[in-house]
Structures are given as structure tokens and as C-alpha cells.
């Protein structure tokens, strides 16, 4: 029986963590993810869960301790945002390359500077090549659902990789919405027990973790890690199917909204998908053939699947809530256009940067973008291929 409640995104993820009751959680506070370790600590203090919480002195240490705990044979996790994730960067690489299936609740916040506490995806995107699986949520329900699917994906024998479950800072993490929660025993059964094959605290079977590797071996280690990330795509879909059976909610690599006959599609990640869907809903009433693709899984990147989903439209607006300072567009823009090229899909593809450091993204912005796309296709208007939305004039 689903439990109907009202919660913020941080409450929803903390609730999922309580239900999973992992072994070890090291964490260090940073806005807007601070509530997660606070709420978990409160659950522990009240005897509602018995995870070992380590109040570490920095995020570098939270990821280091999480790796140590996971290597020792414990299911571990942490939560962070922004600069906290940036400070962990070295350790993110080690979590992935040491094949530690630990989980992280990432509450997306912009990276400094200037220092700013609001949402964009520059933190998660900055870690996009660290070898982690990355799953993004549109709302609190998805943040909750994705977190419950995290360990079954990460711990799968074909994967063994860390997983980042992302939600938008404040917009999702602090806004209270209706939510459907699963019962504790259903979650426990779904996630199952952690049974690693090899771990430090395995009496009589010692192992060594974190070798120096000479050139003769290091390249194979990296290739094996890449294969695992590719494998995770099928596992993500398999776990989503299992999850649908317990929840009735279905998930894929991305969600398509009114794209079947759409000439113009907006592709984006996270909470702004709600705004885009509302705009599309309104425009459809006026007979405009527009749609939305909301990317859920950014790593592994579903280039082929996205190219197929975009094959029959005339133009796509690729929305980046992140500047990547490469002089050529945002990370999603770069990866999608490369994917279209590789899969021989030749459509107009405009890369828009929006919502940085919490800048509002409105239904009107969506109208304007679709207007610009159709102007380009139908009237041959030259459109800047990489541009900002919502800048102060």
C-alpha cells in the first residue's frame, strides 16, 4: 500500500535512506544538502534506524571514509552539494576505479564563484567524467524513487560502480510536494542485503585495495571500468522494471512528453522539465507540435537512444543548466550533438544555457525558445547555436 504524504526532496531522500538503513554514512554539511545528514542523524538519535554515522571534518574525508567503509564490506553513502562535491573530486575517481558501489545524494548547487547557494548543474556536470553513474530527478517523487533504485543498480554484479542520485537544490530539495512512499518492508526487500564477494573484513580471506599499477596493467583496469559503465545501462532499465512492479511508476533512460509527432523538442534535465511540460501542454492546445525529453540518466550517456528519439523532429533545443567554459556550449549540448552526428541524425540543434545559480526559467522562456526553433527551420533564420536564456539585459 502506497503511503501518501507531503515532503521536500531532502525529506524524501532521507526517508529512503532510513528505509534502506545502510551500514555507514560519513557526511559533512553543505547547503542545500545539509538537511539530509541532519535528518538521518535524527532518525538514528530516535532509534528509527541504526546506520553508523561519521561526522567527518570535510567532504574529502566523507568520500574517503565512505570508500574505506565500502571496501571493508559495508554498504555506505554520503550526501553533498556544489563545493563539497568539488572537494571530493579526487575521491570520486577512486570510488569508481576501486569499483565501490556506494551511493551519493547530490543536491545540485552551482559551483563558486561567485559564491551562490542556488541550483544549477555545474557540480554534477563537473563530476560527469569521474566514472559515476548519474541519475537526475525532476521532483521529490523521482528523487525518492531513484534513491531506492540506487543500490540494486550500483551493486549489480555487472556494474560495481558508485551512483549519484541528483536533485535540484532548493527547487526540489526544499519545496514540499505530494509524494507516494513505499512501505518499509517493500523497500527492504527490493534493495536486499549487501553481500560483497571480496572485502577487507572477510576473515581468512584478506584482500588488498588500491594498488600501484604499472603501465602493463593500468589500461585494462580503465577499460574494464568503462565496460562496467556501459553494462549499467541495461541494469538501470532492468531495475526500473522491477521498481515499476512495486510502485506502479515507470522509469527509463529519459522521459518523453508529447514527442511522438513533435517537430520541435526541448531536451533538458531536472526540475525545469516541469516548466517545459507546462509550456508544451499550453502550446499543444494551440496546435503547435512541440514536445519535451527529460534526461534521467546522464551517465552512462544514452547517445544512441537520444539520437533515435530525436531522429524525426526538425529541431531540438538542448538545455544546459551549466556553463562548461569550453567556448563551444554546455556539456549536454556537446554530448547530444556528438551523439546526433555519430548516429547520422541531421537536425537543427541549438544549445541554450539557462538557470545558472538559481536564475528563474519560465514558461515564457520555453515559448520563446520554441518560437526561435521554428523560425530557424521554417523561415531560415540564422540562430546562434550556443546562447544564454534569461540574462539581464
Amino acid at each position, binding site marked *: 500500500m502506497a503511503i501518501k504524504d507531503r515532503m521536500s526532496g531532502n525529506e524524501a531522500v532521507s526517508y529512503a535512506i532510513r528505509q534502506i538503513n545502510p551500514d555507514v554514512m560519513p557526511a559533512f554539511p553543505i547547503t542545500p544538502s545539509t538537511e539530509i545528514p541532519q535528518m538521518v542523524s535524527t532518525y538514528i538519535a530516535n532509534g528509527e534506524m541504526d546506520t553508523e554515522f561519521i561526522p567527518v571534518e570535510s567532504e574529502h574525508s566523507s568520500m574517503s571514509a565512505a570508500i574505506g567503509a565500502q571496501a571493508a564490506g*559495508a554498504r555506505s553513502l554520503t550526501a553533498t552539494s556544489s563545493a563539497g562535491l568539488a572537494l571530493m573530486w579526487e575521491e570520486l575517481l577512486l570510488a569508481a576505479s576501486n569499483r565501490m558501489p556506494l551511493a551519493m545524494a547530490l543536491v545540485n548547487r552551482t559551483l563558486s564563484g561567485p559564491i551562490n547557494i542556488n541550483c544549477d548543474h555545474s557540480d554534477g556536470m563537473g563530476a560527469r567524467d569521474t566514472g559515476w553513474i548519474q541519475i537526475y530527478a525532476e521532483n521529490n517523487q523521482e528523487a525518492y524513487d531513484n534513491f531506492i533504485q540506487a543500490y540494486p543498480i550500483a551493486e549489480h554484479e555487472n556494474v560495481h560502480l558508485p551512483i549519484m542520485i541528483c536533485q535540484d537544490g532548493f527547487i526540489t530539495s526544499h519545496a514540499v510536494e505530494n509524494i507516494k512512499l513505499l512501505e518499509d518492508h517493500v523497500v527492504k526487500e527490493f534493495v536486499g542485503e549487501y553481500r560483497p564477494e571480496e572485502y577487507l573484513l572477510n576473515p581468512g580471506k584478506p584482500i*588488498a585495495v588500491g594498488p600501484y599499477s*604499472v603501465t602493463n596493467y593500468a589500461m585494462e583496469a580503465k577499460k574494464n571500468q568503462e565496460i562496467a559503465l556501459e553494462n549499467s545501462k541495461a541494469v538501470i532499465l532492468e531495475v526500473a522494471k522491477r521498481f515499476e512492479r512495486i510502485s506502479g511508476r515507470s522509469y527509463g533512460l529519459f522521459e518523453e512528453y508529447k514527442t511522438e509527432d513533435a517537430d520541435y523538442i526541448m531536451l533538458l534535465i531536472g526540475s525545469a522539465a516541469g516548466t517545459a511540460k507546462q509550456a508544451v501542454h499550453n502550446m499543444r492546445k494551440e496546435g503547435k507540435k512541440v514536445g519535451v525529453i527529460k534526461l534521467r540518466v546522464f551517465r552512462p550517456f544514452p547517445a544512441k537512444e537520444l539520437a533515435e528519439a530525436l531522429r524525426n523532429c526538425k529541431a531540438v533545443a538542448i538545455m544546459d543548466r551549466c556553463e562548461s567554459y569550453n567556448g563551444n556550449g554546455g556539456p549536454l549540448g556537446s554530448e547530444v550533438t556528438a551523439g546526433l552526428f555519430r548516429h547520422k541524425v541531421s537536425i537543427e540543434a541549438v544549445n541554450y544555457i539557462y538557470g545558472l545559480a538559481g536564475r528563474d526559467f519560465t514558461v515564457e522562456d520555453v515559448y520563446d525558445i520554441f518560437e526561435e526553433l521554428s523560425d530557424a527551420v521554417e523561415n531560415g533564420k540564422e540562430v546562434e547555436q550556443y546562447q544564454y536564456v534569461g540574462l539581464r539585459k
Partner: protein
Amino acid sequence: MGNYSLKEVMNKPERLAPGHRMCAGCGATIAVRAVLRALHEGDRAVIGNATGCLEVSSYMYPYTAWEDSYIHNAFENAGATLSGVETAYKALKKRGRLPQDETYKFITFGGDGGTYDIGFQSLSGAMERGHDMVYVCYDNGAYMNTGIQRSSATPMYADTTTTPVGKKSDGKMQNRKDLASIIADHDVAYVAQTTFTSDFKDLHTKAEKAIYTEGACFLNIMAPCPRGWRYDTPEIMKICKLAVETCYWPLFEVDHGKWTLSYEPKKKLPIEDFLKEQGRFKHLFKPGNEGLIAQFQAEVDRRWEDLQYKCARGN
């Protein structure tokens, strides 16, 4: 520890296997083996290791020299990494995923670079939180793995590759950080400073105490590096003896806040006796540099008196 016998402990099975790639005569492996000899037979251990000579030479894929479970994570986080391992032990024990009669001990090794400097925050955090672990610093007074650069453990006037002696330089300009005191000020269970003495009793006793005292424990072991210090490799025991007899490296412990001197030389030797054996201090013996040696001596005296005061007071 009344019946300590070097011969007996040397007959225990080695927990760091031979065949690793550390230099002949390296102080680090002597320190590691001596610490591991203090583990009681039947007790298991997880060994942590900061990046450094010891790590890159003892666990080179696909070979490991470690008989116990071992984890290297990165350079600056040996403290945090082992605190995660130790906490996992608590969690697994509590949840019945480890047999109740299995005992694991947690020991991590770092050089002075990974301990005094880049790993200082991680160490401080792990010590303050009171994890039941031992952090062992093998202090050879410079970043030896990258080629003898100065660290905050490098003594004043040492010639290193980032404090080279030249026409306008007498070597390192600062005194070394007193890390054992700093960790003692974290109010941890046990801190000790030691090095290699002829029977290794001091090191063995302190290692055993650190391993079997509940809570966070710290051992600072002077572990000479023949390449970085530039002495004749077989003379390591003489170097250590002179460090102790000149009071450059006093032996002491701080047990739950109580300071105790482990050894007091009958006749404190002049610091020249320690310095003159080492190429890194060669310039101090050039005519006209007598004042530098006098300054070095004054700093040794000041620290020795301070230590004597703490030990006489008991806390």
C-alpha cells in the same frame, strides 16, 4: 612487557613479506615490521597506507607484500579512510555480519608528507573523533618519494631539493613541527614517539600499547632515509642512537594525557654528533657556520627542556 625478548618477537611470522621494492636499509619497512610484530597472533588487522614510497613499493599490482587486508586510497586521507574501515567493523559486528569472536585491529601508515602536511586535516579529524585505530607516521623528515623535498617535519638547515643549500641559502629556514605534541593535544588515548633502539623494545612496547589501547592512538617513528639523509646505509642504528642520545629525537609517551619520558641519556651528546653523520647537514661544518650549529643546538635544548617539564608535571 616484562618478558620482552627480541629473539622471540623476531621469530613471529612476518606480516610484511619480503620481495617488496623498498630501498635496502629503508627505515620505513623496519618501522612497519616492528609495529606489526606487536600484533598478537590470531588477531587480524586491516592496514591503511597513505600514498608514498611504502605504498607504491609494497603493493604493485598484481603483487602485494601485505599478509593482512590492506587499503591504499590516496595521499591525504589515510586517517579518514581507515576511520571508514573501523566504522564498518563496528557496523558489521553490530549487525551480525562478522563472527563475534573475530578481532580486527586497524593500523595505518603514512610518511611525514602524508601525515604532517597534506594528510594533517584527515589525521586530525580521525583522531578527534576517537576511532579505535593506530596512525603510524614513519617520519623521515622530507618528501622522499618525490625526491627529497622539504616537509614540515624537516629539521632546520637540512639541505633538500626545495631548500637547497647555495650561496644565499643555508637550507631549510624553519624548525620542524612537533606533531606528536599536536596530536597529544587532541586528547587522544595514546601518543608515543620512538625510533629504532638496539633491542627494539621501546618501539615494540609502544606499538603494542597503541594497538591494544581503545581509542585513537598515534605513533611517531623516526625512520631514517639513507638517500635523503645521505649517510652510509648500514649506519642506520648508529644514526638512530645519536638522535636519541643528543635529544634530537627524545623517546616519550602520552598515555591518556600523562606525559612520560621513556629514556633519559646519562650524558646528553652535542648535536654535532648527530649532524655530522649526514650529508644533508654537511654545509653546517664549513668554517664560519658554527653559529648555525649553535642555533640548532639551542632549539634541541629548548624542546628537550620543554619535554622534561611536561613529563615532570605528568600532564
